[in-house]
């Protein structure tokens, strides 16, 4: 496979990449211990950073939840604000009175995605984990299992399938036309687009960052003119590019937050729609 379609399949890219020009190959993982051979190639830098992300999430929440007092200090205040964001504006809005059951999953999901997205802008990793589509598929699979499981548990399998594949008020001659569409939409397209939205935003964002930073660095390191472009012009353009890359980084910080938020919101909505009486 080549081109865009190969991006959508979670496979390890082959071969080393020199870094210029930035391309889909810039996203290839490196095995952490190449000397152990191909059997340990799954133990790569991006998997390690996802695990570290999970540990950070666990650590930060444990730290924020420790030693609470009636009058909150700065640490407790911050923790409560972050918790309230997910609790009030995501879980309670979407799920109504019995939102509490789903709150741990939603909060974990939100903080895990946010931390991993911020890895793309911060030092040490400089790579958003979810710009590898396999990780985004993994999260969407968790959400897929959750919203179907709660739906089946509440309604029973047959009733749930009927509810999810047949809207009310459709005359029976049209059923054969509608049922495959509802099935495809509810069980395949929605979870798939959930993963794609997260992946594509981070992939594109990280690629833009790479182009700006690496391109500007390359321009600034020019020592002889190319065609009608003088050395001074290229160095100036490179310097301007570096300055602009900070604007791109700021945009990426915003996108990191928005994507974590929208993924959590949609997960809550999917759960709500499989619990709803009718829709």
């Amino acid at each position, binding site marked *: 496979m080549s081109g865009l379609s190969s991006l959508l399949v979670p496979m390890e890219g082959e071969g080393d990449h020199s870094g210029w020009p930035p391309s889909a190959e810039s996203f290839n993982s490196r095995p952490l211990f190449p000397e152990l051979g191909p059997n340990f190639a799954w133990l790569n830098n991006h998997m390690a950073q996802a695990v570290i992300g999970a540990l950070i999430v666990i650590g930060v929440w444990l730290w924020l939840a420790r030693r609470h007092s009636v009058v909150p200090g700065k640490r407790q205040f911050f923790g409560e604000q972050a918790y309230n964001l997910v609790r009030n504006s*995501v879980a309670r*809005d*979407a799920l109504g009175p019995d939102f509490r059951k789903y709150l741990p999953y939603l909060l974990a999901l939100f903080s895990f995605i946010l931390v991993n997205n911020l890895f793309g802008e911060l030092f040490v990793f400089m790579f958003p984990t979810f710009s590898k589509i396999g990780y985004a598929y993994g999260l969407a699979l968790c959400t897929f299992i959750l919203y179907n499981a709660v739906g089946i548990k509440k309604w029973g399998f047959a009733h749930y399938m009927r509810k999810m594949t047949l*809207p009310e*008020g*459709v005359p029976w001659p*049209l059923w054969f*036309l*509608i049922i*495959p*569409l*509802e099935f*495809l*939409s509810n069980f*395949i*397209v*929605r979870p798939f*687009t959930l993963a794609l939205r997260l992946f594509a935003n981070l992939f594109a964002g990280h690629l833009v960052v790479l182009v700006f930073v690496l391109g500007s660095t390359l321009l600034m390191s020019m020592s002889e003119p190319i065609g009608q472009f003088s050395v001074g012009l290229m160095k100036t353009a490179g310097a301007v590019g570096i300055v602009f890359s900070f604007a791109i980084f700021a945009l990426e910080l915003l996108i990191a937050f928005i994507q974590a938020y*929208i993924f959590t*919101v*949609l997960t*809550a*909505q*999917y759960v709500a*729609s499989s619990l709803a009486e009718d*829709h």
Partner: protein
Amino acid sequence: MNEQGNADQGLRIISYLISGLVFYGGLGWLADHLLSTAFWLPIGLILGTVAGIYLVIKRYGRA
């Protein structure tokens, strides 16, 4: 319906339209492929779009 519900609704409507195009367009493509014809794909695409729009109206057109 709150703001997030609206976002979800918009995305679901897109997902219905995509499903219609993919499913019936795919059937049309398959028919063309097997029968060596060239007219089933456009028929499938149009039928799929119609079915998708019908579904959106059925689901959300009441309010």
